[in-house]
């Protein structure tokens, strides 16, 4: 390198003023830097600060299970035959010997019984998928309840929620691939749902299934969608999600020295790298151990799919349970329209409610931003109690999800708790409308109670557990004053005020009408931040009055 640069002429060549590398590693790094510019990249990232909070683990679990799913998925594709061609089984699983089945089912049997370690990888793949979706949901709740979705992170919320929906959908697809009796039932369910779409339903069904149900195309088609199309999109979204996390930096909770303008924590290299890298192995290890112990989706017990047979525990994976609940508790409404056409509302309405339930949470950041008219960036996470309406809304949403999940498992509940399935169904129908409202009210009150307690603590100190007897005989508990740090923590949050409508008359005395939108917004914002939605923070005066000593313990 140096001899080459020696031959070129002085002033115009791009000169490298770099000192000699100290060792092999440095010179290798120099080589790469000359091509990819890694030093510039690393400078801002190597010692990037990550705040530490246990809940950041949730997002990490999502990332790691996704990687595990991809690794094991690639392994499975080496053995799986995505074909519905008929074959007769002659394998080591005796009960199914001589039974007709598809290549897909037979090769899944083969993976489970003939490929050494194949069963383990299948189990890890399925367990990781279950954990993946669960972790995404919980991670999302964390982001929701702490208000971390607010500006500038709304787009990342969209990416994240998109990942959840795709993950659920891809899980469903994967579940369908082995062509066993359970998965076939799921595919049948999907066909029935598609057929319920007005006007184009039967066309969509024919096109998706390549003809009449079940046909011979679904497994190869779903396979491509499951291993290529959806994971491809998810990978893109995931990378975008992570880039944005890096760019925005994590949120942090209010605390001494933590402001909206800084981020306090430990550097990526080495602490965070070691912790996060180590955590990947922890997650992988735990999932491998679970897969050794607990069987999931034992397809050999269900048998191959036959449209005229059914396995009694016809249950989807839990994350599809709420759509199952919708379809189970909906009354069977079918109406005739336009002279002789059937509108299958009993299936179509649940089919529409399903994306609606998801979309409500998906678009929430924009609703809240509009209601609060807050255009600022937020980097300090809210404690859930300090945003009672949001917290209550999230809790109500989760309760709806759980109610529907119970509806989806009504047969299991019935057999385990010895209840009538009809009673459970009626209860779910009522619960669908009532429970979220009740949960909303309770959660909001609970948050306000906690706010009140915080205020109490700040003003009167915390209970010390020491009982003192006053000269006149009364027993009291001594309250210890909070440290400056704790006081700051409990009072650092903002308390936004509701938006007020502009005055009814303008400065010239001309009547001015507020539009419907403006009125709704001010109503909603009153609901969010009005007197009924937050307890005023303690003020310095209140504090001074109490601590100055008259008449207090």
């Amino acid at each position, binding site marked *: 390198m140096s001899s080459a640069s020696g031959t070129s002429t002085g002033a115009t060549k791009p000169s490298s003023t770099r000192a000699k590398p100290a060792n092999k590693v440095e010179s290798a790094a120099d080589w790469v830097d000359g091509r990819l510019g890694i030093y510039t990249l690393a400078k801002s990232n190597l010692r990037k600060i990550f705040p530490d909070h246990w809940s950041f683990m949730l997002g990490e679990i999502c990332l790691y299970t996704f990687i595990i799913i991809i690794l094991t998925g690639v392994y499975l594709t080496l053995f799986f035959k995505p074909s519905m061609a008929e074959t007769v089984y002659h394998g080591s699983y005796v009960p199914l010997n001589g039974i007709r089945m598809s290549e897909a089912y037979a090769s899944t049997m083969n993976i489970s019984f003939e490929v050494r370690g194949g069963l383990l990888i299948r189990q890890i793949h399925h367990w990781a998928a279950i954990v993946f979706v669960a972790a995404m949901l919980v991670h999302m709740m964390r982001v929701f309840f702490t208000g971390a979705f607010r500006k500038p992170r709304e787009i990342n919320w969209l990416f994240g929620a998109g990942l959840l929906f795709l993950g659920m959908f891809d899980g469903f697809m994967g579940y369908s691939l082995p062509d066993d009796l359970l998965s076939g039932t799921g595919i049948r369910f999907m066909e029935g749902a598609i057929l319920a779409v*007005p006007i184009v339903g039967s066309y969509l069904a024919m096109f998706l299934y390549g003809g*009449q149900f079940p046909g011979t195309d679904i497994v190869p088609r779903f396979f491509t969608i499951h291993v290529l199309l959806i994971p491809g999109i998810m990978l893109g979204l995931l990378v975008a999600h992570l880039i944005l996390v890096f760019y925005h930096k994590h949120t942090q909770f209010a605390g001494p020295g933590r402001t909206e*303008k800084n981020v306090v924590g430990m550097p990526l290299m080495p602490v965070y790298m070691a912790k996060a890298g*180590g955590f990947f192995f922890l997650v992988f290890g735990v999932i*491998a151990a679970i897969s050794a*112990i607990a069987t999931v989706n034992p397809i050999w017990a269900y048998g191959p799919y036959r*449209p005229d047979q059914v396995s009694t525990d016809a249950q989807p994976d839990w994350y599809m349970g709420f759509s199952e609940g919708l379809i189970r508790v909906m009354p*069977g409404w079918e109406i005739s329209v336009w002279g002789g056409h059937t509108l299958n509302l009993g299936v179509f309405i649940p089919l529409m409610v399903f994306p609606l339930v998801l979309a409500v949470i998906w678009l929430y950041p924009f609703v809240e931003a509009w209601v609060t008219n807050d255009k600022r960036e937020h980097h300090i996470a809210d404690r859930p109690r300090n945003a009672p309406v949001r917290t209550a809304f999230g809790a109500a949403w989760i309760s709806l999800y759980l109610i529907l999940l119970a509806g989806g498992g009504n047969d299991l509940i019935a057999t385990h708790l010895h209840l009538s399935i009809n009673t459970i169904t009626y209860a779910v129908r009522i619960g669908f409308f009532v429970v979220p409202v009740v949960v909303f009210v309770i959660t909001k009150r609970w948050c306000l109670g906690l706010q009140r307690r915080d205020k109490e603590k700040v003003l009167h100190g915390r209970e010390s557990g020491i009982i003192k007897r006053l000269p006149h005989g009364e027993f009291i508990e001594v309250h210890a004053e909070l440290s400056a740090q704790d006081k700051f923590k409990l009072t650092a949050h903002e308390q936004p005020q509701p938006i007020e409508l502009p005055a009814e008359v303008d400065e010239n005395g001309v009547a001015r009408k507020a539009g419907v939108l403006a009125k709704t917004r001010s109503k909603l914002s009153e609901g969010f931040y009005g007197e009924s939605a937050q307890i005023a923070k303690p003020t310095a005066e209140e504090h001074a009055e109490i601590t100055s000593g008259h008449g207090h313990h």
Partner: protein
Amino acid sequence: MSHDTSDNMPEAHDASHGAVATHGDPFADPGLPAHEPRRTDIDERAAKRAERQVSLLFIVSMLATIGFIASYVVFPIDEIVYIFPIGHVSSLNFALGLTLGVALFCIGAGAVHWARTLMSDHELPAERHPIEADDELRADVIEQFKTGAAESGFGRRKMLRNTLIGSMALVPLSGVVLLRDLGPLPEQKLAHTGWDKATPQNPIALVNMNTNKPMKAEDIIQGSLTFAKPEGLEEDAEDFQVQIAKDALMLVRIAPEDIKDNQSRELGFEGILAYSKICTHVGCPISLYEQQTHHALCPCHQSTFDLADGARVIFGPAGHPLPQLKITTDEQGYLVATGDFDEPVGPSYWERPR
């Protein structure tokens, strides 16, 4: 940074609301707390111990990986063992999974332990910068864009612009059209089943699903549920799955005086009624029968049909009764069908007549 962008940060914004940290403010930010050293920071013996613990974890991982490879070789793939409290499991799967689990977990535990005890735990603040650009940059970029747009003539030549938008909007349609050959058109496919070839002149026999034999009326016991398919539909037929998805029958025998629906009684033969086995909700096969009440229950979403009353829906999400097949007997006394179902089988759809 101009004043304008820093306004964007909440703290700056807050200042205008008066919550400025003053000296007398009891709730002022006391600043980052001082670093408290850990045991391993001050006690070299503790640090050494932590180091040994981490190494031990890594060594256990190595042993577990060796165990994994050994298990792969040692355990036969078809051996089933009983392990309390899990139950019967494949010994190979169990050994591979646990050794792999331990090997991975110990690497993770070692790394985390290392980070927690031996790497620096000094918390450091890093500054945030507003995402939004300042006014100057913003104006500059907008200016550049305007120049570019003006040079393209995009705003001036309206016809160009509108036709471009039009063509861009239409071109994806080609992709949609190309999807047409994914499958055939529905036509009347959903309305007909394998029974539609049956006529009074050429009846099709009902074949018992289990024995693969035609059935006589006396073979059907009162209170039992029998499953049947059309004669000539063999399991190894190429389209067996598609056919059986619509043709599957269930036969019940109900004392004729218990049958509440006259039309249903007439479609049957001496109290034997042939209903579609495919649920009219979203198409699961119905499999549970309660002989006292003559109720049939679909296990998928619990639609319940009263077979004594024309398979009317009495509970659950199904929207209409199960289709019924007209049956009779031929000269030798075998049960036969003389036509197709009275309406389409399975889940309902837009074109389904009502």
